């Protein structure tokens, strides 16, 4: 029966929150038999006594009876969670099922276990020992101090520096797509190579597109103005254009800049005003001759867009 290792709890206090003295005595006996030393089991007869004991003895192991009521249950649970974090303490509830919200809270708070009265002594001991032996060695204590240290507070921490030094020696410089093999093998991370994915600064680099109408029928415009591409391919485009100077059949000279990363194309392209697509629009067909640079730029843009489209589909999955 003695499955609970002495070393785990020899310095721990155990709180049994039960209003009934006789029941407390019986329960202490059962707990003692599975390894909780009787001399370290204390009783809280009411909520305030129980809360005072938690603080006074820094208690992390509690058994609470339904007779205490849901409000006291909530308070004790909140106090433990505040002091040790959600996963840093052990809490077990005993109920007759008379108070539904007591049971409901036990489920919501995900405490370590609930047992319904009446129960057999063996049944109780097995249940407690079973959950305690799993929980106790694996608990994660998060005190207010450790919670605070999760936030950067601007103070140095030699321990962290040591850890960093070890990592630096072991891994050297690596980008976010290169995993630490020692850790990542546990859950399947491997290096990523997707043409659209480059971590860091480059991940914010956009395809640059700028168009400006600079001449009409060979005569430079007194005031050039930017035009915004609504649709574009190698042969034609529709621009958003506030000016209404264009007439069907006009020749328009467009200064274009298309680039991505280090690849940059600046060129002038000739186009013919194609039709009147409506207010605010300028639809053109591009001149067939002398547009090698423009075609190369469009090809570069199409390639990048294709990579990004593929990235969208792949990363999203079905």
């Amino acid at each position, binding site marked *: 029966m003695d499955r609970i290792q002495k070393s785990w709890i020899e310095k721990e206090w155990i709180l049994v929150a039960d209003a009934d003295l006789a029941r407390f005595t019986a329960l202490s006996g059962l707990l003692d038999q599975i390894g909780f030393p009787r001399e370290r089991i204390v009783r809280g007869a009411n909520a305030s006594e129980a809360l005072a004991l938690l603080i006074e003895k820094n208690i992390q192991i509690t058994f609470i009876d339904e007779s205490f009521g849901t409000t006291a249950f909530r308070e004790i649970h909140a106090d433990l969670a505040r002091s040790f974090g959600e996963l840093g303490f052990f809490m077990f509830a005993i109920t007759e099922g008379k108070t539904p919200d007591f049971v409901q809270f036990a489920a919501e708070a995900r405490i370590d276990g609930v047992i319904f009265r009446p129960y057999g002594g063996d049944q109780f001991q097995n249940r407690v020992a079973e959950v305690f032996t799993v929980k106790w060695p694996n608990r994660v204590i998060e005190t207010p101090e450790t919670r605070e240290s999760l936030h950067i507070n601007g103070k140095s921490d030699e321990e962290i520096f040591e850890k960093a030094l070890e990592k630096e020696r072991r891994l050297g410089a690596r980008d*976010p797509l290169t995993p630490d093999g020692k*850790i990542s093998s546990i*859950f399947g991370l491997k290096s*990523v190579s997707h043409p659209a994915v480059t971590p860091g600064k480059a991940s914010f680099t956009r395809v640059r597109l700028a168009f400006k109408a600079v001449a009409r029928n060979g005569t430079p415009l007194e005031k050039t103005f930017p035009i915004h591409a609504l649709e574009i391919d190698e042969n034609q485009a529709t621009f958003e254009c506030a000016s209404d100077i264009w007439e069907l059949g006009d020749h328009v000279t467009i200064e274009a800049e298309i680039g991505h990363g280090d690849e940059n194309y600046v060129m002038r392209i000739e186009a013919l005003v194609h039709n009147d697509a409506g207010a605010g629009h300028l639809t053109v067909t591009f001149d067939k001759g002398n547009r090698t640079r423009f075609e190369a730029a469009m090809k570069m843009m199409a390639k990048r867009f294709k990579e990004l489209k593929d990235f969208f589909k792949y990363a999203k999955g079905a």
Partner: protein
Amino acid sequence: MQKARDSNKKSLTAPDPKEALRDRKLLIADLDPVHRTFLLKLACDLGFETRKIFLAKDGTDALNIVKDEGVTTVLYDDSFGIRTLDAIQTLLSKETPESVFVFLISANSSQAGVGRAVESEVDGFCLKPFASEEFKSEFLTSFSEKALPDEFRRVLNLGKSRLYEGDLEQAEKLFEKAKDLGPSPSSAHFYAGQVKLMKRLLEESRQEFMQGILLNQIHCKCLKAMFDLLYTQKKIDESYEVLRRLVGIFPDNLERLQLAIRMAVKTGNFFDILTWFEVYEGQEEKTEELQKHVCAALSIFGRYLLMTEKLDEALKSFDRALSVGAKREVFLTYAVESLQKYGRGAEATELVKAHDPEFAAALAGEAKAA
């Protein structure tokens, strides 16, 4: 007779998506009136009926149309911002999933922008500027995949609906089946992992997410789920490894970036801070909280570099932290203390001169008087 059978078969297996579009109401949400008109023309070409198309000029307008007109098909330009899209999707989440179709158009042709689109869980996506035919083809393909799903998606959708109903056993069976149907069924593994999570089978759940990631190293849902699981289990080093990948691939998320910065310090992955600083610089929105995180991390990194005797890099790191500007006096004090601790008093004076000349002058005056 045979001909009649064939034609029946055809209508069953390949229904025309344009037919389905005709019956739908469409919302076009775009800030630019010219572009809105342009999209209206494209929508008519796609087969939507003009009288069933609603144009929204701002976010409030868009949300009202979704609420009042019962629109479930949305052509959304990201000039409206991602928050309005989130609000629209929240409203649409009450509709049956099959009836909802959201197509995003974006001028943000960066990995970060597209990554954001992935996370917004829209059904289709197109970058501006596009060729009209390319847009129409993309829209119809995405719509067909949603409205007329293939066997893999059909089984997956069925499993999802069982999952939402709480029928875990049936959902699990369907996800298992889906795994054999798709060429890269990471999503099936993701949902199977969710079922196991709900059954509190944490290890099995992790295995599912791992399978999903092994099949697709950039699968957003599996990566997020794996991170959440490991983080909840307080596996700090492990969860950070997943987090740094998430930020590397989908950098446009402030909360996640803040967490990555905090965890980089906590786990001693100091060299990642330089990457996170680059990601910070790329953000359009820089909150005060994020600035504080960046300053603190760069300052600690500076101190670490001093410890490892990399003075120039340390000074650069302090300088960057102070240039960001949050709580300048706190981080300047920290940098000066650090430099003095490692015997770099002259550099500390120079740093104060550069970032707080008035204070430096006052100090110099005091020293002279003494």
